[in-house]
């Protein structure tokens, strides 16, 4: 994985010093909260319902064991002994003291980490495919491109005060595991005449006006990537709406202009900017690529696994995925234990996963946008030992992509924006479907819960989506069906009137009953919904 050189390190350390100075000015009263707010926000520090929340960037979701251990250390020393992995592949801590924040950033800098641009109206952490580099279906490793974009976007002087936040994802497979087209800019690496380049989508997003991004360029060569993206951002910075916070994302601009007109403006800007020498030389992407070379795989490893322990066999079938290298496997660690809080992990669990990464996975792990963890380089011969170790700390839940593998935002338990609780609904649904055999029978079913219209829980992209709203002071939950964040991206449709907290759990069960009744062989919930439409589900819910 990528390692900082002296320049990366000096920039991150300068940031720590800058934030220490800003925090001191706030604590002394030299800065008002209004003046301090934009400064702390570009460093991922939010003032939430009960305390400060600090969001730490995990670029494209990739971590080393040492970095993971630091995340545990921060949870233990500065928070309440746990952290929350997010849908942006980051981690956030919910109980931070302002005066500790500079020290936390200083500790992060010792392991090449930071909280730069994890909030604010700027370019956020670049996200990517959690199987990057180990999936057989990718045309190239997307991570070097993501790292190039990380560096370009860090402290970008022109794009630090955009109309609204800006999220970029890079993938390189036909199968989209990163909800790429639901990003402000989505990049899919493709091959043309043997050359890898970027297919660019713009104007996707969730929030109160969800949009699937249209393609704006079928191929941007490596040598033009930065100037092209810079042009796309400049058009947005100049013409994105600033009169209404809820219409300020690029999706509204692209929608109002139309993809063709937005594309035309970007091309015009790009034609001018391409002359300015903004693109790094190809040697720079090559340098970064060097850090992402395949690790030293062993050859001749066995592909067979002893499946005599039935619980282990179930875990393998559900959570372990095919690796491009014979004898190896990709291990998904579910952070959705029954009754738990989706995405939360204790410092002991984080430490354990760090140990496993060091011992069994070439010292590397990943965070997924579904709030789970991945060990990407595991010898099949080590799977049993890993499963046992995970089971010891409650992380061996065999529910990847099943109904209890729920994405949920922090909701009203933590977030000052929320209208309703997300976590309790997630827990109640997981309990309702606690029987693992029933979950497996329902098959792939992506259930996503947001506690407000900002849609941090990706409910628009859920096969089943739940949106918490406030109805005359009472928490109320809307149900939507048919969303997808994958390569067949689509937005869910609302079933009808909402439900109360227990009613929504019943409603989810009714919807799955219709699926079980109507499905044909091999059909997932989403496939059945797309085939039979909303009507039978509505009849079951409201008839």
């Amino acid at each position, binding site marked *: 994985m990528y390692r900082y050189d002296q*320049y990366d390190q000096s*920039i991150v350390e300068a940031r720590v010093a800058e934030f220490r100075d800003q925090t001191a000015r706030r604590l002394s009263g030299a800065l008002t909260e209004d003046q301090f707010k934009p400064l702390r926000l570009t460093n991922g520090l939010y003032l939430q319902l009960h305390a400060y929340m600090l969001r730490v960037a995990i670029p494209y979701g990739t971590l080393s064991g040492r970095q993971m251990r630091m995340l545990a250390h921060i949870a233990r020393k500065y928070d309440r002994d746990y952290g929350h992995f997010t849908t942006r592949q980051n981690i956030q801590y919910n109980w931070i003291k302002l005066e500790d924040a500079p020290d936390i950033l200083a500790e992060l800098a010792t392991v090449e980490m930071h909280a730069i641009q994890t909030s604010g109206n700027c370019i956020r952490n670049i996200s990517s495919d959690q199987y990057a580099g180990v999936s057989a279906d990718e045309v190239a490793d997307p991570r070097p491109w993501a790292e190039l974009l990380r*560096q370009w976007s860090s*402290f970008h002087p022109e794009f630090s005060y955009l109309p609204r936040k800006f999220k970029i994802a890079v993938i390189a497979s036909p199968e989209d595991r990163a909800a790429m087209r639901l990003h402000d800019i989505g990049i899919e690496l493709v091959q043309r005449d043997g050359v890898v380049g970027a297919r660019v989508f713009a104007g996707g997003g969730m929030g109160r006006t969800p949009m699937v991004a249209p393609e704006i360029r079928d191929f941007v060569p490596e040598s033009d990537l930065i100037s092209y993206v810079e042009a796309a951002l400049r058009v947005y*910075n100049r013409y994105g709406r*600033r009169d209404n916070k809820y219409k300020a994302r690029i999706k509204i601009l692209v929608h109002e202009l139309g993809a063709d007109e937005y594309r035309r403006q970007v091309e015009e800007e790009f034609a001018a900017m391409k002359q300015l020498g903004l693109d790094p030389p190809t040697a720079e992407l090559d340098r970064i690529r060097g850090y992402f070379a395949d690790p030293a795989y062993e050859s001749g490893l066995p592909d067979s696994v002893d499946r005599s322990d039935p619980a282990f066999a179930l875990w393998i079938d559900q959570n372990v995925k095919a690796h491009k290298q014979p004898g190896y496997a990709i291990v998904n660690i579910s952070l959705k234990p029954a009754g738990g809080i989706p995405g939360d992990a204790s410092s002991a669990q984080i430490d354990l996963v760090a140990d496993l990464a060091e011992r069994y996975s070439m010292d590397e792990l990943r965070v997924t946008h579904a709030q789970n963890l991945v060990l990407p380089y595991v010898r099949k011969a080590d799977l049993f030992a890993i499963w046992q170790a995970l089971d010891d700390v409650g992380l061996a839940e065999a529910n990847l992509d099943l109904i209890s593998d729920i994405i949920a935002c922090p909701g009203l338990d933590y977030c000052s924006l929320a209208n309703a609780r997300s976590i309790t609904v997630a827990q109640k649904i997981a309990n309702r479907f606690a029987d693992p055999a029933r979950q497996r029978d329902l098959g792939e079913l992506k259930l996503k819960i947001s506690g407000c219209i900002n849609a941090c829980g990706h409910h628009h992209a859920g096969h089943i989506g739940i949106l918490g709203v406030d109805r005359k002071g009472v928490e109320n939950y809307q149900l939507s069906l048919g969303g997808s964040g994958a390569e067949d991206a689509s937005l869910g449709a609302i079933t009808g009137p909402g439900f109360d907290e227990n009613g929504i759990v019943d409603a989810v069960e009714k919807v799955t009953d219709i699926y079980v009744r109507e499905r044909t062989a091999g059909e997932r919930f989403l496939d059945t919904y797309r085939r039979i439409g909303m009507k039978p589900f509505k009849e079951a819910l409201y008839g």
Partner: protein
Amino acid sequence: MVDFLSFRDDEPGQEPAVTFEAFAGQTNATAVRIEPGDDARALLPSLDRISLVEVNFPVFGDGRGYSAARILREAGYTGELRAVGDVLVDQIVAMRRCGFDSFRPDHPFDQTAVDAALARYADVYQKTVDGRAPVWAKRHPETTHG
């Protein structure tokens, strides 16, 4: 405290800046003030006669002026480029990188904070219009163009 800051060798422009709309009709005007919604590109044909462009920031969070500044510099404008309005000391590094070379903030800067901010970052990731070599150029001195 500092209510005007310049990084230029020449005297600051004193001529009152006319509005963007008025500028088109006043062929003798040499100073113009642009608001966030004005299209800086419309000034490009007149750059020869302009010696001062004021870019107004009515609120610090409206970042359109950063693009306006870069567009002017990218087109070869060498006159004074002044950020005015709700300009905060924590923004001047980014503004300098986008080509601003003078500042008249609504609320005066503390000179110590200015000096600290300008000295903070020895390295930058992007090539812009300020002539600073981005880290990729430092990493590849032999192959770097421009």
